[in-house]
């Protein structure tokens, strides 16, 4: 609850900073302070100190799982602001507006962290989505950015429509919006309830860009300004997954067996399509878009399995995936040329940043001793709990092996090839420090993931 209030208020405050100061640095500073405050507020609530005490009528309820998830989101946003603030400042004359939009997104995510009712789910998803349409199109003079915004808006509106229809059907059959009410109703899966559930499944798959609902992702991610792609692909995607997991665990957990196979197929398709398509990409940005689809496939395994390992793995996956992807996009946003060749010899020119990028790539590929390994590890553990579904685990590891191919193409360019020309890039000392800090965090989570996981108990 704390996080919802503070982030919404801070969003309004951010809009006013645009009037009060023309120094973009100051605006960024205010935003960074804001995220820290929201993070602290969320932490206080985790410790049991809630700022407001009002009756939510059972529509919002924050448990440790939700609060830890929200903490990870806010922390990732902090890292994102620290790394990308200069790019956000460059992207607009009035960065304060864009910061404000991102705070509204955070507020929506905080609603998602605690939703107990389908209405709150819908409101949360919409609060997240609408600012994103604007962010995707924030590079007004760029045709691709306009296209991305329009595509995102149309597809988003469409999937929201599906979601509303699903909610309506479920409400019609169970007479309740609350998750428990719906859960009590679905014990017997009537056609009406089943179709409501499948509609929700489809719309959530849209939001997390799982195949075959993933087609909007590469175009939107590629067309949007790189800084905002980073935000969409990490923080927002994690939030969508959290909503997906919580919705299906609370409302449809009892009929797990009925929809499990459907999710297994979606997960397998996402893994295969995402990874194989990523192999053929020449642009790093587009490749990372497909890689985000592929990673979504792995997270789908958590929704599929829905056991303790899956919950632990999801938390770890959010952190591992967000930290690594944010770092990669932060570097990418500074490059003019997004082809793989542009990274040739990067390590010779910028050893420190290259090292952090290396750790991020290894983590995404799931190499041991990085956070990404344990994230994948828990997902596999969750799947293997179902002994008869060995094939799904095999699909997962085969696609993980394919993913090594394209992640390591970047490593090869960065470390083993000679640079073509002198680099014009200049990374500030602060940027390097944050990048190294981020890399160390990934390694620490890779050596001792229990430190994060035990927070949810």
């Amino acid at each position, binding site marked *: 609850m704390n996080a919802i209030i503070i982030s919404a208020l801070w969003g309004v405050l951010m809009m006013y900073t645009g009037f009060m100061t023309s120094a973009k640095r100051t605006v960024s500073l205010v935003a960074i302070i804001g995220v820290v405050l929201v993070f602290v507020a969320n932490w206080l609530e985790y410790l049991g100190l809630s700022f407001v005490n009002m009756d939510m009528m059972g529509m919002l309820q924050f448990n440790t799982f939700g609060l830890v998830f929200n903490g990870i989101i806010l922390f990732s946003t902090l890292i994102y602001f620290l790394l990308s603030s200069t790019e956000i400042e460059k992207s607009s004359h009035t960065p304060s507006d864009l910061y404000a939009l991102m705070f509204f997104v955070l507020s929506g995510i905080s609603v998602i962290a605690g939703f107990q009712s389908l209405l709150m789910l819908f409101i949360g998803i919409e609060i997240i989505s609408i600012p994103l349409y604007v962010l995707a199109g924030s590079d007004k003079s760029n045709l691709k950015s306009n296209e991305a915004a329009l595509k995102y808006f149309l597809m988003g509106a469409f999937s929201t429509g599906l979601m509303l229809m699903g909610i309506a059907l479920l409400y019609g059959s169970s007479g309740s919006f609350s998750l428990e009410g719906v859960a009590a109703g679905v014990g017997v899966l009537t056609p009406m309830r089943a179709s409501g559930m499948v509609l929700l499944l489809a719309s959530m798959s849209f939001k997390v860009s799982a195949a075959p609902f993933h087609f909007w992702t590469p175009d939107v991610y590629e067309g949007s300004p790189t800084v905002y792609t980073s935000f969409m692909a990490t923080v927002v995607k994690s939030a969508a997954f959290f909503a997906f997991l919580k919705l299906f665990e609370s409302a449809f957990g009892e009929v797990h067996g009925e929809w499990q196979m459907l999710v297994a197929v979606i997960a397998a398709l996402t893994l295969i399509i995402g990874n194989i398509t990523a192999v053929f990409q020449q642009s790093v940005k587009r490749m990372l878009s497909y890689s985000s689809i592929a990673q979504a496939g792995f997270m789908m395994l958590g929704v599929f399995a829905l056991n303790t390992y899956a919950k632990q793995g999801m938390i770890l996956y959010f952190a591992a995936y967000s930290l690594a992807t944010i770092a990669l996009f932060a570097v990418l946003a500074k490059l003019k040329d997004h082809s793989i060749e542009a990274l040739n010899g990067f390590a010779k020119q910028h050893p420190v940043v290259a090292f952090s990028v290396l750790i991020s790539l290894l983590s995404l590929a799931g190499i*041991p001793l990085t956070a990404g390994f344990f994230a994948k590890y828990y997902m596999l*553990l969750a799947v293997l709990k179902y002994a008869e579904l060995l094939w799904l685990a095999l699909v997962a590891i085969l696609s993980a092996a394919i993913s090594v191919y394209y992640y390591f193409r970047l490593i090869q360019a960065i470390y083993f090839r000679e640079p073509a020309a002198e680099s014009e890039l200049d990374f500030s000392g602060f940027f390097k420090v944050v990048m190294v800090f981020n890399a160390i965090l990934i390694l620490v989570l890779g050596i*001792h993931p229990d430190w994060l996981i035990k927070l949810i108990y």
Partner: protein
Amino acid sequence: MFSAFDNFPALLIWLPLAGALLSFFIRSEIVAKTTALVVSALSLGIVVASLFYSDPKFYQLTQVSYVWLPGIGSSFALVLDGLTTTLCLLTALVFPMIFLLIPKGRFQSANNFYGLMLLTHCGLMGVFMAADALVFYLFWELALIPVYFLSSIWGGEKRIKATFKFFIYTFLGSLFLLIGILYLYLHQNTQSFSIVSFYGAELTATEQTWLFLLFFVAFAIKMPIFPFHTWQPDAYEQAPTPVTMVLSAVMVKMGLFGVLRWLIPLFPLAVKNFNTTIIIVIVVGMIYASLIAIYQDNLKKLIAYSSIAHIGLMAAGAFTLSSVAIEGILVQMFNHGINIMALWIVADIIEQQTGTNKISALGGIAKKAPMLSVFLVIAAFANIALPLTNAFVGEFMIFNGLYQFKPWIAALAGVSIILSAVYTLNMVKNVFYGESSAAVTKFTDISRVQVSVLSVLTIFILIAGIYPTPMFEFISDAVGPIIKKYNPN
């Protein structure tokens, strides 16, 4: 972990790790090399000390164990028994020699080179000592990653492609291994990754078959045995020779070690089902590799293919499940490491001096470098496993096991030994004798460091060939646990 004196072998992991992390921050090449040397020499000292410290009843000499991930029941557990100590000793012997032989200025940014080598050192020790499946897997990967970087940064012209193939192959293999480990973990009685509870797992025949295949592919790729070997010749050729030494002397033993420590004890039913097929495939692969070696003009590739044949023999021996053969393997794993190390050193000296490793471009080196040729001849004899060289005893025992298993298989495998004599002696003849070719006109005899390292290896070859008894006493207790499940009494 340092509280108990008993636990000092854990230093075999921590020392190289610390040395590696230190190396990355050292600017001067000399200091980096000294660090690497000191660390590897200390490791050697620790292994030797642990030999004397040992209990006569060797199994579980030392156990270090502290809880690492309580949530999933994994502890950082290490064990040192006969099997482990042999391989740790080999590792600890090989690394200082490699470091000694690297001349100043051979590698750019040498500190990173030494750092990555020490990281590999740490990974290898961890693989051999791990008594917890998850820890084993982590070190298995940790040994692979630095080697990938070593080969890709400092390797030959086609290095990026060759080492990438190597990496993808082994990484895929280890993912299969991971699935196998996780499945085994979830479907047993105790919530633990420890090797003891894995050994106690009760599995149905179908489960064993699946898990066996998953584990087997991982180990087969690593060894490598036919038909999973295609990454190996390219990777050996393209890697810088010091790294090739690590790969062929120690790293291939990871696969064999995996078979002995995990595969055979874990899945008795499946092993019994598959072993005849596997042995036949391996033996066919041995002959195939030997035939390719005969027609090989590239010195490094010749050694690589010869290594496939030798490793194949050991792998085939392991699947006979006879205690004689397995005793032979334990000894032979060590000896093969020594022999192939000597061969690589000679090959490296030739390549460094002449700039080529084409056998047809070489010839008559013996006249220019008599000392080197003495060492080569001894190493070559050991490679053919002539009596009085170290490899003889081990290979003889493996053949014994194969003969007991199926005489005709032993006969087939014998063909590859004959072929190994053909290509090894041909190589010696063409490279060292005959007319001096243009490439070797400036050849000089070897330096003092090279002489001393090669002498150490040669002494090992001869002593272990003439008086192998101590080695057998050393490993005698290690065989029992491996094939315990196959002997009903």
